[in-house]
Every structure is written in structure tokens, then in C-alpha cells.
């Protein structure tokens, strides 16, 4: 039994397992059918910011181009109204 495990381990070493399938990203606005991004809802917009309060890129959030533009615009409006900070450490 122990022998068999060893053989298996060898095989795995020789043929590296293919990288596990990444979870497909999707645009949450398209999926949920949201048409309008509200600048007043700071808590929601925080999902699209990193710890320093920077807007996360599309390649990380999966947001479609159309809505990324709207999110960016909404974040900027929220910043103007001091609902979100321009620069910070440890947001959230």
C-alpha cells in the first residue's frame, strides 16, 4: 500500500498536474441587472476599492467596461462629497 502511494507521487512529479481551473469572473452589474451605480452608497462602492482607497482594475473585479466607467465615476463623485477618502490607509 505504502509502495503504491510512492509510485503515485512519482507520477505526479513527472507529469505536473495542470493548474486548477480558475473561477470564471463575471460582471456583477450585468448578472444582477443593475443599471445605475449610486454614488451615495459608499458601502457598496467600497467593494471596488483597495485598502488605500484606490479603484480596483477590471482584471481583478471582472466588471465589464461599461460598468467600470460608471463605478469609477461614482467613486469620484463620492470622493468629492467626502463619502469616500481620496487617500487613506486601511480602508474598511
Amino acid at each position: 500500500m505504502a509502495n503504491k502511494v510512492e509510485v503515485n507521487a512519482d507520477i505526479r512529479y513527472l507529469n505536473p498536474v495542470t493548474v486548477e481551473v480558475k473561477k470564471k469572473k463575471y460582471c456583477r452589474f450585468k448578472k444582477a441587472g443593475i443599471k445605475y451605480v449610486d454614488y451615495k452608497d459608499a458601502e457598496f462602492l467600497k467593494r471596488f476599492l483597495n485598502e488605500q482607497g484606490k479603484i480596483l482594475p477590471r482584471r481583478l473585479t471582472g466588471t465589464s467596461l461599461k460598468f467600470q466607467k460608471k463605478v469609477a465615476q461614482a467613486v469620484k463623485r463620492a470622493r468629492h462629497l467626502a463619502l469616500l477618502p481620496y487617500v487613506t490607509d486601511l480602508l474598511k
Partner: protein
Amino acid sequence: MLKSYETVFIATPVLSEPQMKETVSKYVSLIEENKGEVVYEEDWGLKKLAYPIQKKTSGFYHLIEFKAEPAFVETLETQYRRDERIIRFLTFAMDKYAVAYAERRRANRAAKKNETQKAEKFAAKEETANKE
């Protein structure tokens, strides 16, 4: 043609309650005097600012949704700039999605106030879900 707008302003935290009410009524009457129509008003109260503005760390937020001629926005913003009590403002032209969102938001807020209404909404939502 009247267009839908939404305006949020931040007033200084040094104002007293009646002063704040007076400030709000000033802008509401300004809108109405200029053939506008106030759709909705919302007071967010004293809120902490995310960063200091004019060395102040908090302010009174007030939201007014209104319909007016596009040329009126310039008048309104001039008034904001002249007013020392206003430390920040934003006027936003609403598209049809924004109007729909604002209506839903209002409905939600009203529902929160009125529990029975909320129950009805929930039932209606369930009905639509069942239909689908």
C-alpha cells in the same frame, strides 16, 4: 423641458437646527421660484467627513431631488458658492436609470418606516419571483 436633477450639499457643522432648516428652505424656495419642482428631500444629518474640508471634520448633508430647466443649475451653483454655510456641493443630472433607482430608493425608505408596507412589498416581490 424640465430635467431631473439631484443635488447634495454639505453645510458647516457649526449651524444650529433652525439655521440648518433655514438653509434648506432657502434652496427649496430658490428651486420653486425658478419654475422648478422639488420631487424629494432627504436629510442625512450630521455626518463625519472622509477627509477634512475647510478644517472641518463633519458636516450636515442634505439631498434634494428636483426638476428644473438646465439653465437653472448654474444659478443654483452660484448661490452655493456665495453661501458661506455650504462647504461642498454636487449637482447631478439624472438619466432614466437614476430616476428609476431614486424611486426605488424612496420606496425602500418609506417601507422601512412603515413595517406593514414592507410586508406588502415582500409579498409582491415573492409573487413576481413565483411568476418567473
